[in-house]
C-alpha cells in the first residue's frame, strides 16, 4: 500500500472509532419542525430570516413542538395547500411571520448591515436578474488590459481602469461611460470563509438597497447555456467554478441602481467581484458578465502548484494544476506532475497520464511524450545532442539524422535560428511539426512537436511543449 493510502486508511480507522454524537430528542423534534416550517415558508414570496426562526423555536417548549408535529402528521392536505392562510399553523408561527416581514422591511429601508448567508431567494428578482437583452458584441470592442502583472481582462472602449495594492489584497476599479462601476478584490493570502464574507458585507454596507436575493448558480448556467456569452472561453463559463461561487443581487429602486456580487475562487485566489450598474440600463448588466468571463491569466501555461508535497531531491512540488490554452479561444485546466529526467539533468512538468518513450540514436537522445487520450500519432519531445551532431550544417544533414526526407522542410521567412519546420500532406500522410535546437550552459538540446492530422488534436501538443520548456530546470 502506498504511504499516502496507508495514512488515509489510518485516519479512517481513527475516525471509525468515533461514536456518532446523536442529537437529543428535543433537538430532533425542533429541527424537524424547522424543516417543516422552511418547506411551508418557501411557498411564500418573501424570504424569511432564519435568525428569527431560531428565536421562535427557542421559545417553544418541547410539549408545544410535539403538538405541532401531531398537527403536521394528521393534516394530510398541508403540503398540497398553497394558501398559507388556510394552514393550521400554531399562533406563534403567524406572529413570527409578521415579525419577519416587518423587520426585513425595516432593514432594507434603513440600509443596515447585510448578512449574506441569511439572504434567501426572491424568484421574481432572480428572473429580473437573468432577463438581460441579447448582447451586441460589435459595440463591445474591448481592449486587453492587464492587472496584478499576471491577469488580463477585456475592457470595453471608453472604460477606465485603476489598480491599488493593499496589505492583503489587490483592488481593481473599472469605470464605464454609463455610470457603471466594477470593483475586483483579489486576495493575496487565504482568508477564512468568515473573514471573506465579512469583507464582502462591509463593502456592501455602503450600498443601501430595497431588494435582495441570492442568485442560484444553476440559473446562471442555464441562462448562459441558452444565450452564450460573446467569448465562451471556460468550460465552467467563468474563470472559476460557478457551481461553488456565491452570487447575490441587490437593487435600490429609490436611486435606480443594481448591484451584483460574486464571491469565488479565481485561480487559487479568493476574489470578490462587485458590479454597481444603472438599474434601468440592462445592457450594462450583460457587460458585467462579459468582463467577468473575460478574466484570464496573462501568460499560459499558468501554474498552480501544490507546495505541500515537495520532491525530496529537487525541492519542486510534485503535482498541481496548469491553466492552458485549448485551441485558439478556449482555456482549460489540466492536472500536472513533476517530470524528472536524470539523464537529461532536468526537471519540469508534464500533464498527468502522459506516456514517455526514450529513443537513443548515435548522435542524439530523444524523449517523446505521448498522450493517447488526444492522439495516437502525435507527440512532443525533448532531447539532447551528442558529439558529432551536424548542428551547423543546415537542415539537410539534420533531417537525414532524424530519418526524415529533407523535401519535407518548410522554409519560412525570418526563421528562428536553429528552427526547422516540416510538413507533409501527400500520399495519405498529413502531418507537420518543427525541431528547434538551443543551448543551455554549453550543452545543446532540442524541442520538437510532431502533429499528425489523422487524429487532429487542436494544437494541444504545442501547449504541452510550452509547459515542458517553460518549466524546465537543468541541474
Amino acid at each position, binding site marked *: 500500500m502506498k504511504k499516502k493510502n*496507508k*495514512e*488515509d486508511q*489510518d*485516519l*479512517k480507522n*481513527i*475516525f471509525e*472509532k*468515533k*461514536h*456518532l*454524537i*446523536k*442529537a*437529543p430528542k*428535543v*433537538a*430532533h423534534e425542533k*429541527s*424537524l*419542525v*424547522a*424543516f*417543516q*416550517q*422552511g*418547506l411551508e*415558508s*418557501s411557498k411564500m414570496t418573501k*424570504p424569511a430570516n*432564519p*435568525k428569527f*426562526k431560531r428565536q421562535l423555536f427557542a421559545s417553544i417548549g418541547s410539549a408545544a413542538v410535539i403538538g405541532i408535529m401531531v398537527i*403536521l*402528521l394528521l393534516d*394530510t392536505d*398541508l*403540503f398540497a395547500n398553497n394558501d398559507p392562510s388556510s394552514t393550521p399553523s400554531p399562533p406563534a408561527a403567524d406572529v413570527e411571520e409578521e415579525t419577519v416581514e416587518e423587520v426585513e422591511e425595516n432593514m432594507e429601508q434603513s440600509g443596515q448591515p447585510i*448578512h449574506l*448567508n441569511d439572504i*434567501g*431567494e426572491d424568484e421574481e428578482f432572480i428572473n429580473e436578474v437573468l432577463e438581460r437583452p441579447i448582447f451586441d458584441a460589435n459595440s463591445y470592442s474591448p481592449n486587453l488590459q492587464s492587472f496584478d502583472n499576471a491577469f488580463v481582462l477585456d475592457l470595453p472602449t471608453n472604460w477606465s481602469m485603476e489598480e491599488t495594492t493593499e496589505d492583503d489584497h489587490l483592488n481593481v476599479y473599472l469605470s464605464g461611460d454609463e455610470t457603471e462601476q466594477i470593483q475586483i478584490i483579489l486576495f493575496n493570502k487565504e482568508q*477564512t*470563509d*468568515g473573514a471573506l*464574507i465579512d469583507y464582502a458585507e462591509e463593502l456592501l454596507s455602503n450600498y443601501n438597497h430595497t431588494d435582495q436575493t441570492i442568485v*442560484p448558480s*444553476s440559473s446562471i448556467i442555464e441562462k448562459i447555456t441558452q444565450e452564450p456569452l460573446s467569448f465562451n472561453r471556460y468550460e465552467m463559463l467563468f474563470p472559476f*467554478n460557478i*457551481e*461553488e461561487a456565491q452570487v447575490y443581487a441587490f437593487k435600490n429602486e429609490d436611486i435606480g441602481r443594481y448591484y451584483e456580487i460574486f464571491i469565488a*475562487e479565481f485561480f*487559487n485566489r479568493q476574489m470578490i467581484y462587485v458590479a454597481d450598474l444603472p438599474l434601468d440600463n440592462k445592457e450594462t448588466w450583460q457587460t458585467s458578465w462579459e468582463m467577468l468571463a473575460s478574466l484570464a491569466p496573462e501568460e499560459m501555461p499558468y501554474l*498552480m502548484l*501544490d*507546495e*505541500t*508535497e515537495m520532491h525530496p531531491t529537487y525541492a519542486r512540488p510534485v503535482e498541481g*494544476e496548469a491553466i492552458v490554452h485549448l485551441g485558439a479561444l478556449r482555456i482549460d485546466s489540466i492536472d500536472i506532475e513533476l517530470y524528472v529526467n536524470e539523464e537529461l539533468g532536468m526537471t519540469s512538468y508534464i500533464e498527468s497520464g502522459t506516456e514517455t518513450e526514450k529513443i537513443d540514436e548515435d548522435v542524439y537522445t530523444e524523449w517523446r511524450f505521448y498522450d493517447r487520450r488526444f492522439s495516437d500519432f502525435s507527440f512532443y519531445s525533448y532531447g539532447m545532442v551528442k558529439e558529432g551532431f551536424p548542428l551547423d550544417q543546415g537542415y539537410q544533414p539534420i533531417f537525414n539524422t532524424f530519418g526524415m526526407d529533407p523535401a519535407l522542410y518548410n522554409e519560412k521567412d525570418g526563421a528562428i535560428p536553429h528552427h526547422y519546420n516540416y510538413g507533409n500532406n501527400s500520399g495519405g500522410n498529413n502531418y507537420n511539426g518543427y525541431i528547434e535546437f538551443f543551448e543551455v550552459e554549453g550543452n545543446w538540446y532540442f524541442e520538437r512537436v510532431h502533429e499528425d492530422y489523422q487524429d487532429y488534436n487542436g494544437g494541444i501538443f504545442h501547449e504541452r511543449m510550452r509547459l515542458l520548456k517553460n518549466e524546465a530546470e537543468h541541474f
Partner: protein
Amino acid sequence: MNDHELIYRIQQGDHQAVITLHKRHADRIFHYLYMQTGSYHDAEELLQDVFFKAARNLKTFKGKSSFKTWVFKIARHTVIDYYRGSQKEKDTQSMEMDKFDFIGKYVDSAEDTALNHIQMNEVIKYIEELPSHYQSVLHLRFFEGFSIKETSKIMGKSVLAVKSIQHRARAALNQKMKMEVYDA
C-alpha cells in the same frame, strides 16, 4: 429509498418523506455542528437553522451533488454565520470528551511507530487542537466519508486547496504526535 426519491416525494407533499429525510441526516449534521462549535446547546440551535435553510432552498436542489453534500454545505455556512454573528471564539476546551467514547487502540505500521505509544483519546485530543479548518477537512473526509471533490464543494474551496489542507493537517498531527513521543 434514496435521498433524491425522498426529495421528489417531499415536493409531491409526502409527510413521511420529510420525516425520513430529516431522520437520516439530523444526527450526522448535529455531530458536525457540535464538533464545529464545541457547544451542545448551540449545536441544537444551529440544527434548526440548517434544516430551515435546507427546506427553504430545497426547490433549488438540482441533484447534481448528493443531498448530504448539499446539506453539509448549508451546515458549514450556518456555522460561519454563527461565529460571525455572535463574535464567539471556538471553545475547544469545552468539548465533552466523554461523548466521543473512543474505543480500541490505534494500530499503525512499523514505519510510523510513534503512534503506538499514544492512546486513542490522545490522538483525538491532538486532532481537536488543530486549526478548525484542518479539523473540518479531516472530519468530512474520514468521518463522513466525503471525497476530496465533495469536501471541496462543502467548504467552497478548490480540490487543490482541500488536498493542501488535508496534507497540512496530517503533517501537523504527525508533528504533534512525534513531539509527544519525544517528550515522553
